[in-house]
């Protein structure tokens, strides 16, 4: 009897080990591409010499960090990173909520589905393609002004040489992010709206509420938990610029750096152009540590705030 139990348990354990084999490729991936690079961050404390490798290079303490923070760039890219992310987060969340509420008003099922698919689509467009679209809009072929300038001229307004003018770029990038993510977020919010029980609205209707009142007084407050989750997670990632989009659009156009250069683009440029591994790794480590603290805090807050709508 006990023999059989032991046999069965051993068989289960063997089955489980067999099963664990399925996870091996992914585990190997994480070890090599996620965990090994974490160990590689020691480069941040070294005078990196490519011929000596990561572990052979000499230590130089905090010199790399000192170098970065004493350069004038540090303040600029930190401010840009925070500022742009706050703009992106506020604008995309507002757009997502607004679009979801408006989508929810649509009655024709077919129209609603087409609308949803259409506004979701920009999410799947490569940043490089977005960069080309912006060029079409802001600077045309062979030095002509681009579609926006054509329109400005049409209204008798002065045209702008966008790609040499750093001032408007935080707003341009914000518009790009709204275009890119507005539809995506509206799908998330619409799912949250769909899960609001119908009788809340029926009660509202009996009390004579108009559709606008129901949207503002019922839907909007009930979207708060979802918005809070997305907000908290967004704040957690505030230290990571959206590298792909910004770099694809701005690239190495130095005139725009004062308002668009963020940690990620700076790191990338100093790695590729200057080849300064030590300092670059130091910035990366700084970003990862501050980012980790923010993300971890965000996740803890979010867990506490809403147990049932856990996003992670």
């Amino acid at each position, binding site marked *: 009897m006990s023999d059989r139990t032991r046999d069965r348990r051993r068989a289960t354990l063997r089955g489980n080990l067999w099963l664990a084999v399925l996870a*091996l490729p*992914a585990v190997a*991936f994480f070890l090599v591409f996620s965990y090994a690079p974490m160990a590689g961050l020691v480069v941040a404390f070294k005078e990196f010499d490519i011929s000596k490798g990561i572990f052979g290079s000499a230590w130089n303490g905090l010199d790399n960090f000192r170098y970065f923070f004493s350069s004038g760039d540090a303040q600029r890219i930190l401010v840009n990173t925070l500022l742009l992310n706050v703009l992106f987060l506020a604008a995309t969340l507002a757009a997502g909520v607004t679009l979801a509420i408006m989508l929810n008003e649509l009655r024709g099922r077919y129209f609603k589905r087409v609308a949803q698919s259409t506004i*979701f689509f920009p999410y799947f467009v*490569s940043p490089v393609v977005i960069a*080309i679209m912006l060029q079409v809009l802001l600077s045309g072929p062979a030095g002509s002004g681009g579609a926006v300038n054509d329109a400005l001229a049409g209204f008798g307004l002065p045209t702008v040489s966008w790609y040499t003018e750093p001032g408007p770029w935080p707003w341009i990038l914000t518009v790009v992010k709204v275009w890119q993510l507005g539809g995506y977020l509206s799908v*998330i919010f619409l799912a949250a709206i769909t899960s609001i029980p119908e009788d809340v609205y029926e009660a509202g209707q009996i009390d004579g509420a108009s559709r*606008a009142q129901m949207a503002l007084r019922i839907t909007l407050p009930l979207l708060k938990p979802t918005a809070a989750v997305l907000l908290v997670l967004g704040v957690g990632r505030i230290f990571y610029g959206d590298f792909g989009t910004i770099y694809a659009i701005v690239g190495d156009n130095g005139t725009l750096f004062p308002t668009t250069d963020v940690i990620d683009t700076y790191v990338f440029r100093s*790695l590729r152009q200057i080849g300064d591994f030590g300092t670059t790794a130091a910035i990366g480590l700084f970003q990862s540590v501050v980012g980790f603290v923010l993300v971890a805090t965000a996740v803890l807050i979010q867990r506490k705030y809403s147990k049932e709508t856990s*996003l992670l």
Partner: protein
Amino acid sequence: MTTALTSSLAKTSARTATRRRRPEAFTVFSVIGVTAFMIVCLVPFWMIVSGSFTDEQTLATTGYSVVPRPFSTAAYDLIFTGPTLLSAYAASVFITLVGTALALACTSGLSWVIARRLPYISRPLSVFAYIPMLFSGGLVPLYLLVTQYLKLQNSYFAVILPLLVAPFLVFIQVSAFRQLPEEILDSARVDGAGEMQIFFRIGLPLSKPILAVVGLFYAVHYWNEWFTALLFMSDIHKYPLPLLLQNLISNVSFSQMLPTAAEQSTPVYQLRLALTVVTIGPILLAYPFAQRYFVKGITLGATKG
């Protein structure tokens, strides 16, 4: 029976129609708002498509028009006769197909093991997959790893491997696997199926929708990927499409990628737009069929985890 049903349906809809005969201002406002945003989403695409068919000279002098005039396919002729552009397409197809297949295999395996809640195995594994979402080594160690240790420069696998498993998609798949009814798995076990058999014969076939969701996310990701390619590819003949496009933006000399020795002025700008169309083309074509899976996927990810 059917007629009764239809007539009752008709009656209900008639009643709804009378109740909603006059749509409220807010509804009208919403329709206008959504339509406006739809137009904003579509206009850039149309400008690119239209521009790619417009003769370059006209494009420079009169700017963009709604309908391409004079109609010119010069840019597309260049694309489809030039070896560089075709090889970029082949590179992107390879990266997308192989990458998605590998990524889906790795993600499914890991997710299944986590989803089965095995003692001593599942919980640590899920923490193991979760930590990279919180903390990453950053660019430099990854760069050194791929170039110095793995020596993958100019290999398509330098683009495929660093993106192989996305923790977020792992957790989406785990929650989908957990929704499979336990009874089915138990009955298979009673019939003597091994764990592997259960995974391949029952788990995977029953999870086709979520496999589609996750696979599509990976496929789009790989198709659009240019950043890792930018880091690790220096041979222009191995560039995937988005990287070639990126290169055209930043105005590197075109001479080496142009198919024919420049007979006349090459329509560089028009070429750029045509290449953009060619790049988003496959996504645009697949999207109507795939979009409901995407919607399902992020809804699943947003509500359960």
